[in-house]
């Protein structure tokens, strides 16, 4: 039915299977949309946030997806600016994942503000000293970059590409992509950084506060660095998951290994910097504000030293070492494990920098505030995941995302009718099984 839209030389599952998948994920999406509408019309009382938890699950999700989406800018930087041409085989997917992450982040922000109809004030009445202003500006600009990077991909759809103007446009945009990618890297540097700055400048919150370099606290640089390090891991992980689900190899090992190696070294250097930062903060910054490390990790049911260990050692040092060790890296399973750890690590870091900041009492007579999200918060946080899956499903089906797919999976004349449903391991991706030909 939709075979005219499917890229040449590749196989896709039958339309009914595709539609079924879309339907399942779409139901989750609708659930999220319902929660979103509740939040917009009834207000943020639909959440479990409170005056102690002004920032909660959403802001964490925001920071996390932006960090994970960092694969787009960093891979872009490597490919277009530094010239690692090998990465052209994964850049499309990195861009798509980035686009999903950033559009999700913007969507979450649109739900998160108390007065969505006034959210343009952040631009119009900008306070340039606020990290959040910097975030808003760079985030929206960078989203424009991602859109610009994603557009040629859409234009390469088999049918669209037939229109000469469209063809020429995508061609031209490809040609000059380096300019956009460089701008994107510039913007990313600042918004990833300023997201780190959001917590780091809070001098009223000794748990978050960090010493400054120029106008930026250390977290500014750590966030940028960690996004560059951990973002590609997420790209690798999602690629791996996609490969698992489609049961095809989509990107060649050389590309994967190159990106994994770079990510590994980035992580390795990042985690050293992070350890130095933590030690300095624990021994110098916090005590100067009247706090000991123990104050931040005791006297409450959740936040213990374990979280520090999990973030820095288990999901920081360990995956970094795994990735920079060629032997481990080249093992597919261990590589996947390392990327999973890395994704958890950066998510934990963002959690700590948002949620634990809110939880730690500052006034000596105040309380540790604990929080759990309401279903509306959970649904609106899952909403972008569902949306991302749908966008990936559509993009994968109709756009030439993986340049190496056709080469790695040459079409066989015979249709392989083997059904493959139900055997896959459960992942957050909805299974899109089957390598059945487009036309039965």
């Amino acid at each position, binding site marked *: 039915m939709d075979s005219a839209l499917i890229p040449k030389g590749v196989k896709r599952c039958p339309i009914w299977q595709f539609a079924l998948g879309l339907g399942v994920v779409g139901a989750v999406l609708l659930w999220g949309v319902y929660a979103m509408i509740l939040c917009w019309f009834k207000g943020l009382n639909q959440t479990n946030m409170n005056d102690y938890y002004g920032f909660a699950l959403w802001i964490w999700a925001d920071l996390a997806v932006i960090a994970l989406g960092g694969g787009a800018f960093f891979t872009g930087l490597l490919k277009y600016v530094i010239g690692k041409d090998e990465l052209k085989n994964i850049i499309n997917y990195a861009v798509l994942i980035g686009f999903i992450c950033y559009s999700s982040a913007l969507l979450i922000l649109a739900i998160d503000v108390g007065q969505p*109809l*006034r959210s*343009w004030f952040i631009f119009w009445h900008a306070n340039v000293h606020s990290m959040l202003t910097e975030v808003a500006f760079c985030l929206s600009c960078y989203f424009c970059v991602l859109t610009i990077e994603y557009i040629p991909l859409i234009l390469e759809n088999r049918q669209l590409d037939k229109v000469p103007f469209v063809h020429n446009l995508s061609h031209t945009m490809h040609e000059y992509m380096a300019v956009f990618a460089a701008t994107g890297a510039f913007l990313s540097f600042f918004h990833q950084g300023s997201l780190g700055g959001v917590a780091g400048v809070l001098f009223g919150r000794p748990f978050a506060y960090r010493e400054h370099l120029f106008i930026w606290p250390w977290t500014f640089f750590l966030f940028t660095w960690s996004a560059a390090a951990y973002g590609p891991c997420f790209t690798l992980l999602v690629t791996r998951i996609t490969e698992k689900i489609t049961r095809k190899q989509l990107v060649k090992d050389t590309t994967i290994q190159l990106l994994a190696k770079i990510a590994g070294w980035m992580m390795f250097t990042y985690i050293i910097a992070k350890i130095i930062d933590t030690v300095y903060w624990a021994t110098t910054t916090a005590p100067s504000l009247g706090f000991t490390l123990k104050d931040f990790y005791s006297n409450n049911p959740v936040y213990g030293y374990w979280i520090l260990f999990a973030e820095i050692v288990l999901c920081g040092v360990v995956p970094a070492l795994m990735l920079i060790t060629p032997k481990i890296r080249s093992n597919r399973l261990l590589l996947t494990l390392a990327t999973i750890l890395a994704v958890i690590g950066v998510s934990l870091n963002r959690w700590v920098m948002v949620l634990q900041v809110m939880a730690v009492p500052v006034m000596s007579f105040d309380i540790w505030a604990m929080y759990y999200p309401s279903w509306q918060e959970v649904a609106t946080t899952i909403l972008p995941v569902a949306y991302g899956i749908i966008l990936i499903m559509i993009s994968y089906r109709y756009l030439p995302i993986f340049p190496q797919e056709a080469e790695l999976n040459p079409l066989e004349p015979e249709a392989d009718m083997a059904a493959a449903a139900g055997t896959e391991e459960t992942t957050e991706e909805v299974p899109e099984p089957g390598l059945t030909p487009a036309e039965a």
Partner: protein
Amino acid sequence: MKIDRRSFLAMSVGGAVGTALTPLPWKIQDDLAIWTQMWPWTPFPPDGENTYVNSVSTLCGGGCGITVRKVGERAVKIEGREDYPTNQGGICNLCASGLQMLYGPTRIPYPMKRLGERGANQWVRLSWEEAISMVAEQLGEIRQAGQPETVACLSTRPYGSMPALLKRFMTAYGSPNFMTTPSMMDAYDMTLKRMHGVDGRMGFDLENADYVLSFGSGLIEGWGNTVHMIRINSKWKDTNAVLKQIEPRLSNTAAKADQWIPILPGTEGILALGIGYVIIKESLYDYDFVNNFSAGFDEFRRAVLSGYSPGNVSKQTGVDQSTIVALAREFARARRPLALCGRGQGTVPGGFGEYVAVHALNALVGNINRPGGAWAMPRPEMDGWLEPVLDAPAEAGLAKPRLDGAGSAAFPFAGQLFNRVPVALKAGEPYPCQALLVYDANPLFSMPGSGMVREALQQIPFILSFASHMDETAMMADIILPNLSHLERWEDVPVTEGFHRPMLGLAQPVVDPQFDTLHAGDTLLQLAAALGGTVAASLPWENYEACLKEALSPRWAELEDRGYWIDENFTPDDWSLAFPTVSGKFDFAVSGADLKTLFAMTAPQGDDGSYNLKLIPYDSVRIANGAVGSPPFLIKIVSDKVLKGKTVLVEVNPETARAAGFGEGDQAVLKTPLGDAAVRVHLSDGLMPGLVAMPRGLGHTAYDRYLAQKGVNANDLIGSVEDTASGLDATWGILASLVKA
């Protein structure tokens, strides 16, 4: 030319570009942002001329001077009146919330008659004429039947023109049963009568006291005039006066005191006697006063020395011997020591023996009618009125004994014993009650043993309420003739118990009546007129305002002008003139009472061995627990360690809780001989082990959703215990146990 997809696209692009160059998108965006400021459900208060009206707030017992800021016709803020003698600018949280009571949804908007079951809160509106003639008919029938004494009337305040008018109405009607809700005033009045021989009220010159022993009085939690007492507490901090707080719980007063002395509940009087023992034993008492101006000291001395040695007292009270001795010495050696009692806010009187024992300490150190001491004050009287006219039925009715037994052979010194009414009605002695008039009182909520009170009210065939707000007792009424709110009416406000100057404040209308309500005084005058005869003749005034002016005629001009009248130069009588007793002296022997029985501790209800804890109620300054419920602002400032959602938290010592297997916030069922309640546990190091403390004032079933169904009414769980020596309500707590929910 073909209009195809492309042309349409081109037109749209053109339209988009063009639109961007007009104000349309930008203006709409701006206006939408502004629209979010003006949501129709957000009220925008209109502006207008600012005026200030002085009045007196009668919401709490304090009677503070207030200044109400008005904008146009709306009252927008209540502030303390800076030149008012008692509060001098400060204000309590309840009176500051007064506008929520004035404008709130709990107001009773018009006269109503009950429809359906009592308490079902279903009403039919009446016109004032209908309502008054209905009530007059009812009361007329009872009087015609020759039973005027079977009509009773209840008020909270004993003094002022309204209680006086009600009492006058009852007298002219022929009933001796004008009563007020019990309070420490009853006990102090009795103390004055039996020790000083004075028919008056007690005053304390707290400002000038330099050492205060408080036997559980919540001095900064609503005892006396809240604001005045808090001001005095601050003054004590400046002058380094000493406050020792004796009570089982670390109350706000205990927290501000120089020393908190925890004591087993109900044994405060015993401690006072123990302190007396040391003072007598060590001859620390004031020889001049004791030898020359007191009688019965030997009996008192004998009674104290025979059973209240520090060792004995320590065992009974849980207070260290050394503390008892130290307190006695400090007290006796202070320049102006003062001992006080009346638990919490003093809304439950307590046993008479306790008052005698505590007040005897003041006498021992001779701090009676002296600066910084306890003063016998004259009662505020309505001196402008003539005597009521009585006809034969009235005389006959008045000759009957009172329902509560006050003034009878058993309780000759008691003035008010409303706490005895439920028991009396149950027993049908001395006669049934056919009608009850309730003015400014909510006994169903505010009195211990509310279950008994409910039963008693159920037995009364006709209940008339003058309530302004839909409280629990009003819900039980058959007819409500709603009074004006406290900010809509004239009223004289005599100063509270404990204040050491004769003083009177004048509340005046701040705003026009907001509903179809009438001043209860006017309602009463119209009722009297409808009843006709001597009743009408005894209440001849055209309206309440005229009646009030006449009552206060000697001071009216000053009251109207300044808003209050005070006798700044008042000094109590000298010792030689102060005691109109038989001996002409202060009577340590309490007019021949059996001191041993008098001083015996009142046992709590339910001593059947199945309870291992004691439940004590406590008064919180942040919860109204009297005739008026807590407005939303008050409920808002209640701690989440007191009320969480709809559940009350009871305080338990961590040790006690641990023994019973409870941790912070755990759900539990609190059982007492009177009932069970679901509660949560709050661990408090500020409570004696073995006790459970519960705030009074929660658990309303009437009022609005901001107040009702929150927590438990402590009075549902704690019964009223009668002091056999005086008839007073001696309740201090009840046996209880905490079990897992």
